[in-house]
Each structure stands twice: as structure tokens, then as C-alpha cells.
């Protein structure tokens, strides 16, 4: 359809019009992605709604139709990012058979995903704390999402049933403790090389030092 010069282009009308949900979904997606980028770069406090709408290329009206405020938008962006990350981790985990291999694959995927976007990784696991109590709860919930990587260890390990009920939660804490330390020190690129350490430290809780060293060593040493 020819456009007369000077007149602004508008989305096609009539039967060509994109369904409202499609438009809204793409605006929402753009906004959530933009939010992670802007907050990772500027910090949660300094980032304004205007920064977010500008980066996403949407209007303020659209922003407020989607979210009541910056915090609601950030929390949605955070959840969405965790969700995407966990899909990668879970599918890597499920592609393996034996539990130690599954845990390795899950951790490997986690490290690779985090290393691929250091600014986002730092926001996910470190700087999120600056975004208030609700964000802090989302952060801890995100850490809990890692427990399924280790739950199976109770069945796999001889005597695993005698371990504390929240052994997998503790393992998740151990993993995030080490990863956060690297992120704080700006060494995200180093994350993939932590795989054998992380695997060893989590397997040892279930299998003991000898078997854990064997599992780690079989593939890396």
C-alpha cells in the first residue's frame, strides 16, 4: 500500500490488523527484556519508568496498561528471566540418565547461561537485593528452583534417605554462594570453569568424598 509522504505509517488496518493480544504480548516482551537490560546497567534505584519505556520503544500509557509501577514490571521481568534460564537447565538435566550426570548437565547449562550474559547474571543473583523485599523473596525463590537438580540424590545415594530433608536446598545454596562470589568479583567469564568444583561440592553431600571424586574425575581428570 503506497504511503503519501509526510503522513506517518500506521499498523495495517482491517483484516491485516494484528490481533490485540499479539501486539500486547510483543510490547510486554520488549518491555521485560528492556527492563532487565536497563536495571542491570543503571541499577534498580536510578532506573526510571521513562528509561524503561524509551529502551523498549513503548509509550508510558502502554507501560501503565501493563504494570502498575516500576517494581511490578521489574518483578515480572525477573520471573520471566528465571523461567527462561530454568528451562535450559531443566532440559539439560533431563537429557541425561544417571543422577550424577544429570546434576552435571544441569549445572553446566546454568553456568553457560549465566556466563553468556554477565550483566544479567549479576542482576539475577547479586544486585536484585537492592530492589526491595519483594525482589529479595523472588531471588530466594529462584535459588529454590535449583533444588530439583539434587532431590534425586536422596534416592541415588546409598543411605541418601538419612540425609536432612532439605539437603537439596542446602546444595542449591552452596552452588549460588560460589557463583555469586564470582559475579561480585566480575569474573562471570570464569563461571564455566567452576563446573567440577560445584559438582564435587554438591555430590559429596550425597555420595561422600570418594565417590564424589570418582564421579567428577571420570569426566574431567
Amino acid at each position: 500500500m503506497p504511503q503519501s509522504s509526510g503522513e506517518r505509517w500506521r499498523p495495517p488496518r482491517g483484516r491485516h490488523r494484528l490481533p490485540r493480544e499479539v501486539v500486547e504480548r510483543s510490547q510486554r516482551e520488549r518491555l521485560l527484556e528492556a527492563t532487565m537490560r536497563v536495571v542491570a546497567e543503571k541499577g534498580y534505584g536510578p532506573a526510571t519508568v521513562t528509561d524503561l519505556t524509551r529502551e523498549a520503544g513503548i509509550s508510558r500509557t502502554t507501560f501503565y496498561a501493563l504494570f502498575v509501577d516500576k517494581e511490578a514490571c521489574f518483578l515480572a521481568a525477573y520471573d520471566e528471566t528465571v523461567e527462561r534460564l530454568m528451562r535450559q537447565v531443566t532440559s539439560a538435566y533431563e537429557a541425561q540418565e544417571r543422577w550424577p550426570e544429570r546434576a552435571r548437565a544441569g549445572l553446566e547449562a546454568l553456568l553457560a547461561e549465566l556466563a553468556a550474559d554477565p550483566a544479567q547474571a549479576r542482576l539475577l543473583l547479586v544486585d536484585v537485593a537492592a530492589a526491595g523485599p519483594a525482589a529479595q523473596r523472588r531471588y530466594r525463590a529462584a535459588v529454590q528452583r535449583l533444588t530439583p537438580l539434587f532431590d534425586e540424590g536422596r534416592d541415588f545415594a546409598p543411605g541418601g534417605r538419612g540425609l536432612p530433608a532439605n539437603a537439596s536446598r542446602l546444595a542449591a545454596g552452596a552452588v549460588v554462594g560460589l557463583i555469586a562470589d564470582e559475579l561480585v568479583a566480575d569474573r562471570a567469564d570464569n563461571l564455566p570453569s567452576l563446573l567440577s568444583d560445584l559438582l564435587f561440592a554438591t555430590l559429596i553431600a550425597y555420595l561422600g568424598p570418594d565417590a564424589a571424586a570418582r564421579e567428577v574425575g571420570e569426566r574431567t581428570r
Partner: protein
Amino acid sequence: MQSSESSRRQDILAAMIRVVGAKGYRETSVADVIEEAETSRTTFYKYFDDKHDCFLAAYQLLVDQVFGEIVANCDGEATWTTRMTAGLTALVDRFADDPQLARTAVVEVAAAGAEARQLHTDAIARFTRYLDAGRELVPDKQLPENISLMSAGAVSGLIFDELLAGRADRLPDRLPDLLFAMLVPYVGPQAATAEMRKLSAA
């Protein structure tokens, strides 16, 4: 009663720890701290540039005094396991006694910027120094260099969760689990579970 210069500064620092623990770092204003410390704005700005400056000084004091006292339990002639259990018990008891201090120490510090986070990292390093002595228990196993960070991460993660949920009073019930998490990378599941049981029975 007229308090001395240095004790007035100490009062402000103690007030900062309490207010941040109760309201959160972001929500805390200099006015809140002044009110809690029963001092004046002039006095506050005599000692500190702003809220952040005061928080850093308060956190440093917390690390030196409170963590210093707690970590002292890890010294002595007893076995490594006994000393580490004593240190962890002291930490948990202190946090349960003073939930506001605990929340500032573990949760809110993360909201106060990079310098504060560095102080937190230094505080954790006070523990991991002692943890590292546990490496001798497994001479041939070649534990990863950073094993103490993972041990500390598991412990502080669980404490963080309880504090965030406002359940500091339940921390002592968590002590067996925390002990397991701290010891298991060094001694393996059997020995860690045995220590955990011993503690539960005590």
C-alpha cells in the same frame, strides 16, 4: 546525662543497625536514625556524610564486634568439628536474640551497594578461614580451593531464607541442618549426619 563524643557516634551506629533491620536499607532515612539514636541532625552530620557513609561504618562495627565475638568460638584446642559447631551455634544464637541485627547483617547489607557487599564478603571470610582448616581432614581428596565458600553459601542461604520470612526465632531449630551443610563438604554425609544427630540429641 551527657554522653561522650565517641559514645554518641556509637549510639548512632547502633541505631542505624536497628532501623535498617526493622525497615530495610532503602526505606531507612537519616531522620529515622536520628530519632532512634535520640540525637540531632547536626550531630549526625558531624560524624557522617550521609546515610550510606553511616551504614558502612555501622556495618564495619558489626563485623568487628559481633562477628569477632562469634568467630572467637572457633579458636582453641578442641577438635575442628567441635570448634566449628561452637562458632555456628554462637552465630545462630546471636541472630535469634537480635533479629534486627541479623537482618541487617545478612539480608539488608546486600541492598546497600558494592562497598557494603565487600564488607559482607570480608565478614564471611572470617568464617571461611577457620573452615579451611577442615581441609586437613581429607588429605588426599584434593578438595576444591573454594570449598569453604560453598559451605558458607549453604549456611548463609538457609539463614537468609529464615530471616527474610521473619523467622529469626526459629534459627536455633535449624541448627542441625546448618551444621550438616557446613560440615558435609569436608567430612561427607555419614559423619555430617552423625554430628547433626549428636547436636539434636544434646
